[in-house]
Protein backbone atom coordinates (compact mmCIF):
# COMPACT_ATOMS: atom_id res chain seq x y z
CA UNK A 1 0.00 0.00 0.00
CA UNK A 2 1.29 3.39 -0.97
CA UNK A 3 2.38 6.21 1.26
CA UNK A 4 0.45 9.22 0.03
CA UNK A 5 2.40 12.47 0.23
CA UNK A 6 1.26 15.97 -0.61
CA UNK A 7 3.84 18.52 -1.74
CA UNK A 8 2.44 21.87 -0.70
CA UNK A 9 3.55 25.42 0.17
CA UNK A 10 0.87 28.08 -0.05
CA UNK A 11 3.16 30.35 -2.02
CA UNK A 12 3.72 29.78 -5.72
CA UNK A 13 7.07 29.38 -7.41
CA UNK A 14 8.93 27.90 -4.44
CA UNK A 15 9.60 24.53 -6.07
CA UNK A 16 6.62 22.22 -5.42
CA UNK A 17 6.47 20.81 -8.92
CA UNK A 18 10.27 20.62 -9.27
CA UNK A 19 10.39 18.75 -5.96
CA UNK A 20 7.53 16.41 -6.88
CA UNK A 21 9.22 15.44 -10.14
CA UNK A 22 12.70 15.14 -8.60
CA UNK A 23 11.55 13.06 -5.61
CA UNK A 24 9.25 10.88 -7.72
CA UNK A 25 12.11 10.09 -10.09
CA UNK A 26 14.61 9.55 -7.26
CA UNK A 27 12.30 7.08 -5.48
CA UNK A 28 11.39 5.27 -8.71
CA UNK A 29 15.02 4.95 -9.76
CA UNK A 30 15.61 3.19 -6.45
CA UNK A 31 13.05 0.58 -7.50
CA UNK A 32 9.97 2.01 -5.79
CA UNK A 33 6.67 2.17 -7.67
CA UNK A 34 5.70 5.84 -7.81
CA UNK A 35 2.74 7.85 -9.09
CA UNK A 36 3.06 11.62 -9.27
CA UNK A 37 -0.32 13.36 -9.42
CA UNK A 38 -0.84 16.94 -10.61
CA UNK A 39 -3.65 18.68 -8.71
CA UNK A 40 -3.16 22.05 -10.41
CA UNK A 41 -6.33 21.90 -12.48
CA UNK A 42 -6.38 24.55 -15.19
CA UNK A 43 -2.66 25.33 -14.90
CA UNK A 44 -0.92 22.00 -15.12
CA UNK A 45 2.87 21.92 -15.17
CA UNK A 46 4.01 18.59 -13.80
CA UNK A 47 3.62 17.03 -17.27
CA UNK A 48 6.09 19.61 -18.62
CA UNK A 49 8.69 19.01 -15.92
CA UNK A 50 8.35 15.26 -16.46
CA UNK A 51 8.66 15.70 -20.25
CA UNK A 52 5.31 14.00 -20.87
CA UNK A 53 3.33 17.00 -22.15
CA UNK A 54 2.84 15.51 -25.62
CA UNK A 55 1.47 12.25 -24.27
CA UNK A 56 -1.45 13.32 -22.08
CA UNK A 57 -4.73 11.77 -23.23
CA UNK A 58 -6.72 11.47 -20.02
CA UNK A 59 -6.22 13.38 -16.79
CA UNK A 60 -7.24 13.51 -13.15
CA UNK A 61 -10.61 15.11 -13.92
CA UNK A 62 -11.49 12.39 -16.46
CA UNK A 63 -10.79 9.78 -13.77
CA UNK A 64 -12.66 11.75 -11.08
CA UNK A 65 -15.67 12.07 -13.38
CA UNK A 66 -15.47 8.45 -14.53
CA UNK A 67 -14.81 9.25 -18.22
CA UNK A 68 -11.57 7.27 -18.10
CA UNK A 69 -10.20 4.46 -15.99
CA UNK A 70 -7.20 5.13 -13.78
CA UNK A 71 -5.09 2.66 -15.79
CA UNK A 72 -5.89 4.56 -18.99
CA UNK A 73 -4.96 7.92 -17.50
CA UNK A 74 -1.66 6.94 -15.88
CA UNK A 75 1.24 7.81 -18.19
CA UNK A 76 4.28 5.60 -17.80
CA UNK A 77 7.60 7.44 -17.75
CA UNK A 78 9.80 6.67 -20.76
CA UNK A 79 12.99 6.58 -18.67
CA UNK A 80 11.90 4.68 -15.56
CA UNK A 81 9.39 1.83 -15.78
CA UNK A 82 8.06 2.19 -12.25
CA UNK A 83 7.30 5.92 -12.52
CA UNK A 84 3.83 7.12 -13.56
CA UNK A 85 2.19 10.50 -14.06
CA UNK A 86 -1.45 11.41 -13.59
CA UNK A 87 -1.77 14.81 -15.26
CA UNK A 88 -4.10 17.63 -14.27
CA UNK A 89 -6.70 18.88 -16.71
CA UNK A 90 -5.69 21.97 -18.63
CA UNK A 91 -9.19 22.92 -19.73
CA UNK A 92 -11.59 22.31 -16.85
CA UNK A 93 -11.84 24.53 -13.82
CA UNK A 94 -11.03 23.61 -10.24
CA UNK A 95 -14.69 22.97 -9.37
CA UNK A 96 -14.56 19.78 -11.43
CA UNK A 97 -12.54 18.23 -8.62
CA UNK A 98 -14.90 16.69 -6.10
CA UNK A 99 -14.04 15.47 -2.64
CA UNK A 100 -15.55 12.02 -3.29
CA UNK A 101 -13.80 11.75 -6.65
CA UNK A 102 -10.39 12.60 -5.20
CA UNK A 103 -10.89 10.14 -2.35
CA UNK A 104 -11.74 7.38 -4.83
CA UNK A 105 -8.71 8.13 -7.04
CA UNK A 106 -6.33 8.07 -4.05
CA UNK A 107 -7.94 4.85 -2.79
CA UNK A 108 -7.57 3.24 -6.23
CA UNK A 109 -3.93 4.34 -6.52
CA UNK A 110 -2.84 2.98 -3.13
CA UNK A 111 -2.66 -0.77 -3.92
CA UNK A 112 -0.62 -0.29 -7.10
CA UNK A 113 2.14 1.97 -5.78
CA UNK A 114 4.67 2.38 -2.98
CA UNK A 115 4.43 6.16 -3.20
CA UNK A 116 1.73 8.54 -4.42
CA UNK A 117 3.01 12.12 -4.54
CA UNK A 118 0.35 14.80 -4.93
CA UNK A 119 1.62 18.07 -6.39
CA UNK A 120 -0.55 20.80 -4.85
CA UNK A 121 -1.46 24.03 -6.61
CA UNK A 122 -0.36 27.24 -4.94
CA UNK A 123 -2.83 29.05 -2.73
CA UNK A 124 -5.19 27.81 -0.07
CA UNK A 125 -8.26 27.32 -2.23
CA UNK A 126 -10.14 24.20 -3.21
CA UNK A 127 -7.36 22.62 -5.33
CA UNK A 128 -4.76 22.94 -2.58
CA UNK A 129 -7.22 21.75 0.02
CA UNK A 130 -8.19 18.64 -1.98
CA UNK A 131 -4.56 17.83 -2.82
CA UNK A 132 -3.75 17.53 0.89
CA UNK A 133 -7.10 16.07 2.02
CA UNK A 134 -6.32 12.34 1.77
CA UNK A 135 -2.54 12.45 2.22
CA UNK A 136 -0.75 10.51 4.95
CA UNK A 137 2.00 13.09 5.28
CA UNK A 138 2.89 16.50 3.91
CA UNK A 139 6.09 17.92 2.50
CA UNK A 140 5.96 21.66 3.07
CA UNK A 141 8.20 23.37 0.53
CA UNK A 142 9.57 26.76 1.58
CA UNK A 143 12.22 29.19 0.41
CA UNK A 144 14.27 31.02 3.03
CA UNK A 145 12.29 34.18 2.38
CA UNK A 146 9.71 35.97 4.54
CA UNK A 147 6.57 35.61 2.41
CA UNK A 148 7.24 31.93 1.73
CA UNK A 149 7.75 31.16 5.42
CA UNK A 150 4.58 33.01 6.36
CA UNK A 151 2.56 31.11 3.73
CA UNK A 152 4.06 27.82 4.92
CA UNK A 153 2.88 28.61 8.42
CA UNK A 154 -0.62 29.13 7.05
CA UNK A 155 -0.47 25.83 5.17
CA UNK A 156 0.69 23.99 8.29
CA UNK A 157 -2.43 25.32 10.01
CA UNK A 158 -4.61 23.94 7.20
CA UNK A 159 -2.84 20.57 7.30
CA UNK A 160 -3.66 20.35 11.00
CA UNK A 161 -7.31 21.28 10.55
CA UNK A 162 -8.73 20.32 7.15
CA UNK A 163 -7.09 17.00 6.19
CA UNK A 164 -8.94 13.72 6.59
CA UNK A 165 -6.36 12.62 9.17
CA UNK A 166 -6.84 15.81 11.20
CA UNK A 167 -10.60 15.44 11.07
CA UNK A 168 -10.28 11.93 12.47
CA UNK A 169 -8.26 13.33 15.34
CA UNK A 170 -4.98 11.83 14.11
CA UNK A 171 -1.79 13.87 13.94
CA UNK A 172 -0.81 14.89 10.40
CA UNK A 173 2.90 14.33 9.71
CA UNK A 174 4.54 17.41 8.21
CA UNK A 175 8.10 17.82 6.99
CA UNK A 176 9.94 20.91 5.84
CA UNK A 177 11.79 20.94 2.54
CA UNK A 178 13.85 24.11 2.28
CA UNK A 179 14.56 24.92 -1.37
CA UNK A 180 16.64 27.51 -3.23
CA UNK A 181 18.92 27.70 -0.23
CA UNK A 182 22.21 29.57 -0.56
CA UNK A 183 24.50 28.60 2.35
CA UNK A 184 26.93 31.43 1.61
CA UNK A 185 24.28 34.14 1.75
CA UNK A 186 22.74 32.56 4.85
CA UNK A 187 26.16 32.54 6.50
CA UNK A 188 26.60 36.21 5.65
CA UNK A 189 23.24 36.99 7.19
CA UNK A 190 21.66 37.99 3.86
CA UNK A 191 19.21 35.09 3.88
CA UNK A 192 17.20 33.36 6.58
CA UNK A 193 19.21 30.40 7.85
CA UNK A 194 17.93 26.86 8.30
CA UNK A 195 17.63 27.31 12.06
CA UNK A 196 15.72 30.59 11.64
CA UNK A 197 13.10 28.89 9.47
CA UNK A 198 12.88 25.83 11.73
CA UNK A 199 12.44 28.07 14.80
CA UNK A 200 9.42 29.68 13.20
CA UNK A 201 7.74 26.69 11.56
CA UNK A 202 8.53 24.06 14.22
CA UNK A 203 8.24 21.02 11.95
CA UNK A 204 10.98 18.45 11.28
CA UNK A 205 13.44 19.20 8.48
CA UNK A 206 13.33 16.71 5.61
CA UNK A 207 16.02 18.27 3.47
CA UNK A 208 17.75 21.35 2.11
CA UNK A 209 17.94 21.85 -1.65
CA UNK A 210 20.62 24.34 -2.68
CA UNK A 211 19.94 27.05 -5.25
CA UNK A 212 21.33 25.74 -8.54
CA UNK A 213 21.26 26.49 -12.26
CA UNK A 214 20.72 22.76 -12.82
CA UNK A 215 17.07 23.15 -11.81
CA UNK A 216 16.28 25.43 -14.79
CA UNK A 217 18.30 23.19 -17.08
CA UNK A 218 16.25 20.19 -15.98
CA UNK A 219 12.98 22.05 -16.48
CA UNK A 220 14.06 23.15 -19.98
CA UNK A 221 14.75 19.55 -20.91
CA UNK A 222 11.61 18.12 -19.31
CA UNK A 223 13.68 15.79 -17.14
CA UNK A 224 13.52 15.69 -13.32
CA UNK A 225 16.80 17.10 -11.98
CA UNK A 226 17.57 13.80 -10.24
CA UNK A 227 17.73 12.19 -13.71
CA UNK A 228 19.08 15.04 -15.87
CA UNK A 229 22.22 15.52 -13.81
CA UNK A 230 22.36 13.04 -10.91
CA UNK A 231 25.75 14.34 -9.78
CA UNK A 232 24.53 17.92 -9.40
CA UNK A 233 24.02 19.43 -5.97
CA UNK A 234 20.19 19.61 -6.09
CA UNK A 235 19.99 16.03 -7.43
CA UNK A 236 22.14 14.73 -4.58
CA UNK A 237 20.05 16.70 -2.09
CA UNK A 238 16.81 15.25 -3.50
CA UNK A 239 18.33 11.76 -3.47
CA UNK A 240 19.09 12.21 0.23
CA UNK A 241 15.48 13.29 0.82
CA UNK A 242 14.20 10.20 -1.03
CA UNK A 243 16.36 7.98 1.18
CA UNK A 244 15.07 9.71 4.32
CA UNK A 245 11.50 9.15 3.13
CA UNK A 246 12.30 5.44 2.88
CA UNK A 247 13.40 5.54 6.50
CA UNK A 248 17.18 5.66 6.04
CA UNK A 249 19.17 7.88 8.30
CA UNK A 250 21.10 10.28 6.07
CA UNK A 251 23.23 13.11 7.53
CA UNK A 252 21.93 16.58 6.72
CA UNK A 253 24.44 18.39 4.57
CA UNK A 254 23.91 20.90 1.78
CA UNK A 255 25.60 19.46 -1.32
CA UNK A 256 27.47 21.91 -3.54
CA UNK A 257 27.75 22.01 -7.31
CA UNK A 258 31.26 21.53 -8.58
CA UNK A 259 32.13 25.08 -9.44
CA UNK A 260 33.62 26.14 -12.75
CA UNK A 261 36.58 28.44 -13.20
CA UNK A 262 34.38 31.54 -13.18
CA UNK A 263 32.75 30.60 -9.90
CA UNK A 264 36.09 29.76 -8.35
CA UNK A 265 37.42 33.19 -9.25
CA UNK A 266 34.35 35.36 -8.72
CA UNK A 267 31.66 33.13 -7.23
CA UNK A 268 31.88 34.36 -3.67
CA UNK A 269 31.90 38.01 -4.60
CA UNK A 270 29.36 37.75 -7.40
CA UNK A 271 26.81 35.70 -5.45
Amino acid sequence: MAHVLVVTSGKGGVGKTTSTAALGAALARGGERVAVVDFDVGLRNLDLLMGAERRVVYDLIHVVQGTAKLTQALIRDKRIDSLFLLAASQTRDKDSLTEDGVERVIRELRPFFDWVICDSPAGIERGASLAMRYADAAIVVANPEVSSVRDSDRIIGLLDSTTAKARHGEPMDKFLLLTRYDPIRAERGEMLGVEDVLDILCIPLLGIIPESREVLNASNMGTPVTLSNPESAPARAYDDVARRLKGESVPLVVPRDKSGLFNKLFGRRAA
Partner: protein
Amino acid sequence: MKLMGWFGRQRSAETAQHRLQVLLMHERGGPGNTDLIPILHEEILAAIGRHIPIDADKVEVRIERGDAVSLLEIDIEISSLAQHLLHRRAPAVDFRHTSLR
Protein backbone atom coordinates in the same frame (compact mmCIF):
# COMPACT_ATOMS: atom_id res chain seq x y z
CA MET B 1 34.60 23.47 -18.82
CA LYS B 2 33.04 26.88 -19.03
CA LEU B 3 32.51 26.68 -22.79
CA MET B 4 30.85 23.29 -22.37
CA GLY B 5 28.66 24.89 -19.75
CA TRP B 6 27.60 27.64 -22.12
CA PHE B 7 26.82 25.23 -24.93
CA GLY B 8 24.94 23.01 -22.51
CA ARG B 9 22.74 25.86 -21.38
CA GLN B 10 22.08 27.03 -24.90
CA ARG B 11 20.96 23.56 -25.89
CA SER B 12 18.56 23.26 -22.97
CA ALA B 13 17.02 26.68 -23.72
CA GLU B 14 16.54 25.67 -27.36
CA THR B 15 14.89 22.46 -26.23
CA ALA B 16 12.63 24.44 -23.91
CA GLN B 17 11.60 26.79 -26.72
CA HIS B 18 10.87 23.94 -29.11
CA ARG B 19 8.85 22.02 -26.53
CA LEU B 20 6.78 25.10 -25.78
CA GLN B 21 6.15 25.81 -29.46
CA VAL B 22 4.82 22.30 -30.08
CA LEU B 23 2.77 22.27 -26.88
CA LEU B 24 1.19 25.70 -27.38
CA MET B 25 0.42 24.95 -31.02
CA HIS B 26 -1.73 22.06 -29.80
CA GLU B 27 -3.22 23.93 -26.82
CA ARG B 28 -4.16 27.03 -28.82
CA GLY B 29 -6.26 24.80 -31.04
CA GLY B 30 -9.11 25.79 -28.71
CA PRO B 31 -10.62 24.43 -25.54
CA GLY B 32 -12.65 21.75 -27.33
CA ASN B 33 -9.54 20.40 -28.97
CA THR B 34 -8.09 18.61 -25.96
CA ASP B 35 -11.29 16.62 -25.57
CA LEU B 36 -11.09 15.40 -29.16
CA ILE B 37 -9.19 12.25 -28.20
CA PRO B 38 -11.78 11.04 -25.66
CA ILE B 39 -14.51 11.66 -28.26
CA LEU B 40 -12.59 9.73 -30.93
CA HIS B 41 -11.90 6.97 -28.40
CA GLU B 42 -15.59 6.60 -27.66
CA GLU B 43 -16.73 6.73 -31.28
CA ILE B 44 -14.07 4.34 -32.58
CA LEU B 45 -14.92 1.83 -29.85
CA ALA B 46 -18.63 2.19 -30.58
CA ALA B 47 -18.01 1.54 -34.29
CA ILE B 48 -15.92 -1.56 -33.59
CA GLY B 49 -18.26 -2.64 -30.81
CA ARG B 50 -21.12 -2.89 -33.29
CA HIS B 51 -19.29 -5.81 -34.91
CA ILE B 52 -17.34 -7.49 -32.14
CA PRO B 53 -17.62 -7.42 -28.35
CA ILE B 54 -14.99 -5.21 -26.63
CA ASP B 55 -14.07 -5.06 -22.96
CA ALA B 56 -13.65 -1.34 -22.19
CA ASP B 57 -11.04 -2.19 -19.52
CA LYS B 58 -8.82 -3.80 -22.14
CA VAL B 59 -8.43 -0.73 -24.30
CA GLU B 60 -5.35 1.46 -24.16
CA VAL B 61 -5.23 4.88 -25.77
CA ARG B 62 -1.91 6.62 -26.28
CA ILE B 63 -0.95 9.76 -28.10
CA GLU B 64 2.35 11.27 -29.14
CA ARG B 65 1.88 14.87 -30.25
CA GLY B 66 4.51 15.94 -32.76
CA ASP B 67 5.39 19.07 -34.74
CA ALA B 68 4.00 17.93 -38.08
CA VAL B 69 2.24 14.67 -37.27
CA SER B 70 0.62 13.26 -34.15
CA LEU B 71 0.29 9.55 -33.59
CA LEU B 72 -2.87 8.24 -31.97
CA GLU B 73 -2.56 4.66 -30.91
CA ILE B 74 -5.53 2.61 -29.76
CA ASP B 75 -4.75 -0.89 -28.54
CA ILE B 76 -7.78 -3.12 -28.20
CA GLU B 77 -7.42 -6.53 -26.66
CA ILE B 78 -9.79 -8.89 -28.41
CA SER B 79 -10.87 -12.14 -26.73
CA SER B 80 -10.60 -15.40 -28.68
CA LEU B 81 -14.37 -15.57 -29.17
CA ALA B 82 -14.44 -12.03 -30.54
CA GLN B 83 -11.39 -12.82 -32.63
CA HIS B 84 -13.34 -15.58 -34.32
CA LEU B 85 -16.04 -13.05 -35.23
CA LEU B 86 -13.40 -10.60 -36.43
CA HIS B 87 -11.88 -13.11 -38.83
CA ARG B 88 -15.28 -14.03 -40.21
CA ARG B 89 -16.64 -10.55 -40.67
CA ALA B 90 -13.83 -8.08 -41.16
CA PRO B 91 -10.61 -9.80 -42.05
CA ALA B 92 -8.73 -7.03 -43.79
CA VAL B 93 -8.89 -4.13 -41.36
CA ASP B 94 -6.23 -3.29 -38.77
CA PHE B 95 -7.71 -0.94 -36.17
CA ARG B 96 -4.59 -0.72 -34.07
CA HIS B 97 -3.06 2.42 -35.49
CA THR B 98 -4.72 5.56 -36.64
CA SER B 99 -2.69 8.56 -37.65
CA LEU B 100 -4.01 12.09 -37.14
CA ARG B 101 -2.63 15.10 -38.89
